[in-house]
């Protein structure tokens, strides 16, 4: 199983991007590309070639799901797994996202000291075959 190295993180809140960046790069030793909107992400994602999308669910203009669809349409990114982050803890929304192939739905506020571990854990236990079928 491939090691998790590169994460594309999309969140409209700048402060959260700063915290997440520290959590993933400094604490977690991951390579991170951060974007403030779905539009920005679709412009930069292909060049970055991430192993995983980490998407905020609630964003203006393009929300998390719309961003995911746009990203998956890009060449080479069709099978990139996704983790959503949300401040809204609604079981039905989380279930819906999982059904659409999300590896996990992480609720905010997250613990920056644990975020990278949490993501790695989900990454390593992901059902690769099933995911491809689902997508």
């Amino acid at each position, binding site marked *: 199983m491939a090691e998790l190295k590169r994460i594309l993180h999309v969140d409209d809140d700048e402060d*959260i991007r*700063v915290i997440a960046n520290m959590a993933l790069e400094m604490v977690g030793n991951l390579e991170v590309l951060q974007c403030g909107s779905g539009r920005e992400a679709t412009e930069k994602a292909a060049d970055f070639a991430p192993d995983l999308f980490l998407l905020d669910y609630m964003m203006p203009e393009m929300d998390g799901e719309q961003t995911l669809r746009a990203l998956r349409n890009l060449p080479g990114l069709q099978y990139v797994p996704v983790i959503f982050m949300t401040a809204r803890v609604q*079981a039905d929304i989380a279930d819906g996202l999982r059904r659409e192939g999300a590896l996990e739905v992480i609720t905010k*506020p997250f613990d920056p000291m644990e975020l990278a571990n949490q993501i790695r854990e989900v990454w390593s236990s992901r059902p690769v075959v099933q995911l491809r079928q689902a997508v």
Partner: protein
Amino acid sequence: MMSEQAIETTSGPLGQKCRRPLAVLVGAFAAGSVFAGLLNMAPSSSAAWGSTLTYALLFGVLGVAVYRRNKILELQRDLVRQQAQEIQLTHAALNNHALVCLTDPDGKIASVNENFSAKFGYRQEDLIGRHISIIYPDGDEDATMLEVRRSLARGEIWTGESEEVTAEGTKVFMRCTIVPMLDEAGKLVKTVSIRTDNTEYRRAEKARFLKSLFDHLQDEVYIFRTDSLQMVYANHRALEASNWSAKDIDAKTIIDADSQMNAAAFRAHVAPLMRGDRDSVSIEVMRGDRAGEIRTRLVRSDDGELLFVSVLRDTTERMETERARLESVSVVSHELRTPLTSIKGALRLLGSGAMGDFDAQAKSVLDIAERNTETLLLIVNDILDLEKIRAGKMRLEKSDVDLVSFLNDVVEMNTGYGAEFQVDFDFSTRLDTAMARLAPERMMQVFANLLSNAAKYSPTNDTVRVGLEDDGEYWQVSVTDRGPGIPESARETVFESFGQVQNTDGKTRKGTGLGMAIARKIVLAHGGEIDFESEPGHGTTFYVRLRKPHLEADLGQGDTETASLSDVA
């Protein structure tokens, strides 16, 4: 006392006896003529005839006078006899109707009639010689009695109502007229008192007053028997809401008032009242699109019968206010979560040392910031939970759980929290297993709340006791602390949103004010009950009662079963 005598019947109207003087006059006249004739032998001259006539007249008049006098005496005797009879009758009527008592000038009872002794529950002979204060509630210091005695000493008649007491201690209300009898020097020699029992009237008047009061209430009031659940009374609103007429009330039971109620469920609901464990029980109900709360109490009627009183209060408006408040607060809460994520994350990064080390003082300031961010987040989460429950978006994923091991887990998971307050949790039960059907995560939330509350309010180094008992149709979990207690006046607000109780010991305690509201809604959504008993100054016990599953029907219906909480929000 008075003797019972047969009443003589009079021989006819008085008038009949007065029509006879003419006959007497004629008779006397004739007798006079005969007498005069005997003296003169043969009245041959007109002078002789004249004197004969004079004698005859004289005799006649004399006879009439004697007759009249006798008659008058006879009439007077009749009158006296009649008056005596009337007095006897009046006395008999009074004796039958009223309570009569004669006392000496010192207030010692000289005689009483049978009504008096029977009403006050003594034997007649036991009352004679006793002081009249025996029938007054405050004995020889009774204010009414002293007022009566002062009035009698002045020679005045006392009239009024007086509260008195029987040998058994039952209060009675008497209308009294107490008359003093004075000697020529104006000194009190005797008193005569006449009492009529006014207790029933007072009671009926009170009942009428209460009835009219109840009929003006917007709440539905039902009063019914404990054994048959048969209605005794329903106020105007209750009749209207249940579509009953006052006439057929006797044929109704409380079960007829609520389509969702059945006798067994009702019996289980009121069981704590019957056991004397609680003063009142309440349940939330829906009536069409209106929400209501029924609170039931036990009362004893004046004649000693045990009755249930149920009051249904419309809570739609209260619910609506709560809903609006929650909704607006939850909107704000959502907005708060994003900045909180940054604050919490930043503090966590600083506090973890990932950004370099701080000295002790800076670290302690950082701890304060972290702790309070945590509290703020708890509040926000609670608000969102409540709103979720209200909007029917919280799911109960039920499974079969053994409460014994579940409560062991509860205690273990909350040990750390208790330690913050230097409080231990101790769970003990006689049961080996207690299977229930519940949503473990949600029920964990309920008990975490109860335990953390108990810890918060406990004295330091104390133990909070958790118990589990088999209570018929229910498993009853108890959480007992020895804290300052909850005053009865706060009973209504404990389970309301933001309903933190005014502390009785003056200490302030951190909390969101929502935990109990959430706990209650979760328990209700499980078809359970939550309540508490408290003795201010000595501690509080919270009870959670969870219905046992009916083995064949409820247990093992698959691993999970999802239910919505919307019906209790």
